[in-house]
């Protein structure tokens, strides 16, 4: 989703060559860039966009999984899912805070999400249709997220890198939880196996799309790599994910929905079939099955919560005024 965050980024900047060179030297020396450090505008903008879209994805990602909280099949699963979805909200919160260090407010980012200007990961535009989808999301979506985020723990921007360390720990717990759901289903009744296979069929390709367009189509990848905002290319990460996931699917006894998937002795990796990039771009541009509903749900929550937020501000102002009045009276 983070690589998707770079789509359409304008990373050009107008600083002097000396300034850019000095900045690049710091990056090359693996120094962390901190909020008050001088940085090229393109670097700042790229990060704002990437962190913002990552945050939005966490927030919107609460919806497809939240869809199964009330229907989770056991109390243990219900508690775990509730905790997981709550973690995602927490990730959103750290990420908005990390983005705030770059001079953009949470309010501003929220408005961009709600208006549809800012994007969220394409994966959350797919519906969750069965309990097995919750397993598949944990296993594949959180698995893909980890693949993307582990390198981000070494991202050149300090606050983002540090936020990622905590996020990764939680994501890896979620991934294991999802895989465990799939394990139980895969070893269960025929209906459960079918449910697990169906979820895998529907989420496999969308999970591969999470890594973003092919490197050849990813126009800003080089600059982000040079700035160490990204540490691996989209295709490298996608390949790592496939290589890690194929044996897990085999262990589960489930079939990945790709007839071209084959182990390549020479590369030591799995070759895989062609991704449907039309579907990818359609989804990224707002045409996913659930894109409108996700955005509508966020807007509804925001609009219906306005009176609550207004009341909290009004109450705080009243308290402050009363306190000041009491102080004046005492003086």
């Amino acid at each position, binding site marked *: 989703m983070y690589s998707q965050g770079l789509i359409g980024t304008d990373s050009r900047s107008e600083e002097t060559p000396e300034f850019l060179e000095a900045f690049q030297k710091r990056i090359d020396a693996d120094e962390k860039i901190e909020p008050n450090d001088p940085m090229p505008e393109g670097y700042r903008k790229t990060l704002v966009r990437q962190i913002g879209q990552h945050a939005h994805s966490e*927030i919107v990602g*609460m*919806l497809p999984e*939240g869809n199964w*909280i*009330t*229907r*989770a*099949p*056991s*109390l*243990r*699963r*219900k*508690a775990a899912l*509730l*905790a997981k*979805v*709550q973690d995602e*909200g*927490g990730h*959103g*919160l750290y990420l*908005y805070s990390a983005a705030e260090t770059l001079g953009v407010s*949470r309010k501003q980012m929220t408005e961009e999400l709600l208006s549809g200007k800012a994007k969220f990961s394409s994966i959350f535009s797919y519906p969750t249709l069965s*309990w097995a989808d919750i397993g598949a999301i944990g296993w594949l979506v959180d698995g893909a997220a980890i693949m993307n985020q582990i390198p981000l723990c070494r991202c050149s921007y300090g606050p983002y890198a540090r936020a990622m360390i905590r996020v990764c720990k939680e994501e890896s717990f979620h991934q294991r939880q999802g895989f465990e*759901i799939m394990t*139980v*289903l895969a070893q*269960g*009744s025929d*209906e*459960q196996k079918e449910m697990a296979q169906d979820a895998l069929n529907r989420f496999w390709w969308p999970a591969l799309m999470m890594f973003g367009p092919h490197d050849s189509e990813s126009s800003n990848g080089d600059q982000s790599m040079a700035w160490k905002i990204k540490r691996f290319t989209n295709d490298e990460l996608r390949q790592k994910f496939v290589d890690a996931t194929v044996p897990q699917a085999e262990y589960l006894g489930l079939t990945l929905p790709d007839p071209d998937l084959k182990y390549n002795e020479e590369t030591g990796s799995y070759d895989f079939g062609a991704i449907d990039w039309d579907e990818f771009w359609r989804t990224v541009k707002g045409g996913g099955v659930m894109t409108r509903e996700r955005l509508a*749900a966020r807007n*509804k*929550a*925001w609009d*219906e*919560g*306005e*009176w*609550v*937020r*207004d*009341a*909290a501000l*009004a*109450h*705080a102002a*009243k308290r402050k005024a009363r306190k000041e009045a009491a102080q004046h009276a005492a003086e």
Partner: protein
Amino acid sequence: MDRSEALFETLIRLADDHLILGHRMSEWCGHAPMLEEDLAMPNIGLDLIGQSRPLYTYAGEVEGKGRDEDDFAYRRIERDYRNLLLVERPNGDFGHTMLRQLYYSAFMEPFWREAKNSTDETIAGIAAKAVKEVAYHVRHSGEWVIRLGDGTEESTRRMADAVEALAPYVDEVFADDEALDAAADLGIIPSPKNLRAEWDARIDAIFAEAQLERAQTVSISGGRQGRHGEQMGFLLADLQYVQRTYPGLTW
């Protein structure tokens, strides 16, 4: 009613209250008025569902028929649920949800505090953990009731509506109930009746700060006897969906 029967029925009542209220709270997940509440509300829901689990498990042990927590939570008919009508009330707006939470938590805080001294060791253990969680629930929901009551014109009106809407369900919290009364006589739990004065004082103090008035109304009850409101069936349809569609499987 003998000891184990009183204990079993008490456990089911408490567990059902916690499960159903936790379920209602979990319905907010991803739809809260602000991100902080998207964290706080599921957290409260999680505490409540977490508290229901040892209560159900212990009820199964006391009953001795091999039923586990999920048998109770998922595989009973509506009439067998013994929760208060208060906790099954639909969420309504954020103000309704917070007031409902405050009403229940302000009851359970002294309840768990007293139950730490239960003659039943398992209940005392559950109470010792729950009392810390419920203190946070009272604080969180109480602070919101104050903010919203003494906020804007709109929030004041909405909170007054919530007070009116939930008033009929308060008396049932403290009403006579054969099982709870028997358990209280045996020192297993405090008698709900005896917690009313403390509850009233707590709510009055919060309402005074919130500039809200208590509402007088006719009481409605029935939850403790398994006579629920119409919304309960839909809640259970949601809750039990997977277990009912695929009976007898492990998840």
